């Protein structure tokens, strides 16, 4: 099972707004193959960067309104929030080294 926090429509704003660390939200769904492949990579990244960066998951089936609010049209999409504001968006599954490179500015 995933060690990452699962956000919901109810908890999303609170979690994103109150996070002291940059928070990466992984918009995903069960039926998305690339989402499944990138999941263990995100878990490893979260563990290795604990204390610097948080990663949480948002299932778009359960939270379609949040996905719509952020105009997510493709999953997996990662959105990096800092102080409650969306700072960066990464569309599509990527390997660990490429993700690290993209997230370097927040770590």
């Amino acid at each position: 099972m995933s060690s990452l926090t699962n956000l919901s429509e109810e908890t999303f704003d609170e979690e994103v707004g109150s996070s002291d660390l940059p928070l990466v939200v992984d918009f995903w769904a069960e039926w998305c193959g690339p989402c499944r492949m990138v999941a263990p990579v995100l878990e490893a990244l979260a563990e290795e960067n604990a204390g610097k960066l948080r990663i949480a998951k948002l299932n778009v089936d359960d939270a379609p309104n949040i996905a719509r609010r952020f105009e997510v049209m493709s999953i997996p999409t990662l959105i990096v929030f800092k102080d409650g504001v969306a700072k960066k968006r990464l569309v599509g599954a990527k390997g660990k080294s490429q993700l690290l490179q993209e997230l370097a500015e927040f770590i």
Partner: protein
Amino acid sequence: MTDVRDVLIIGSGPAGLTAAIYTARANLRPLVLEGEPSSTSDQPGGQLMLTTEVENYPGFVDGIQGPDLMAAFRGQAARFGTEFLTVKATSVDFSSRPFGVWVDDEEYRARTVIVSTGARSKMLGLESERRFMGRGLSTCATCDGFFFSDQPIAVVGGGDSAMEEALFLTRFAEKVTVIHRRDTLRASKIMQERAQKNDKIEFLWDSVPVELEGDGRLDGIRVRNVKSGEESRLDISGLFVAIGHVPNTAILAGHLDMDEAGYIRTHDGAKTSVEGVFACGDVQDHVYRQAITAAGSGCMAAIDAERWLESVGTD
């Protein structure tokens, strides 16, 4: 000193994972470089990771989801001791033995290499493609169809993959236009019939997309009729492309004999132009391209590799 493996497998679709199951059961402790996550078909698990229901893989009466099938293949390979690395091979050297495979600066050595890097979907080759990727243009219908509820979208292509995508997308879309450059489909009869019977699917024959349009996100495409040369605009918010495949053989160019399209040439089973290097799956097959044929050829590659190792002995 780099540890020399008996078997190194590049790629992890049905071919690579079947080769892993067989060589692992033969106690050859294969190492699989399974690739890196991506939203194209060039990723761990291969092309089936982007499909939903697989109805023709024998043994599954009610069908099985593509990603579930690949998870089962992988689990079975792991059960017999296959080692996996989620990395993508970046270069090879087959000119001397043991063979060398690199992931950036990391070097791997093996007595036999099984190449099963597969093929990936072709893109249109339009300049505007990059700009609309994830903003209406998608490489993965199963990932992104959900976001086009009650919207008009289009699929480019006339083969089985195009029909599968179009049919899948009718679950969400208001209307799916299939754009095909000819006036007849290449798809199998059963898929053609299913698509033609579906009320949500329309066909735009003899046509090719020439430009993607929209401010920020896709709102339409320009389409050219290849017979009349006339151009028109089609209002759509989503575009899915299924116009064929290209083999993932860039790192193998100059190291293995290939055909004009870049597919690896195999002979006498899974043998390539280099003794001790074997190839299986879509990287050497542009004719059948099925999960079951890929798996079958992966089994052949494993048996060929095992016999070859026996014939040369361990040094």
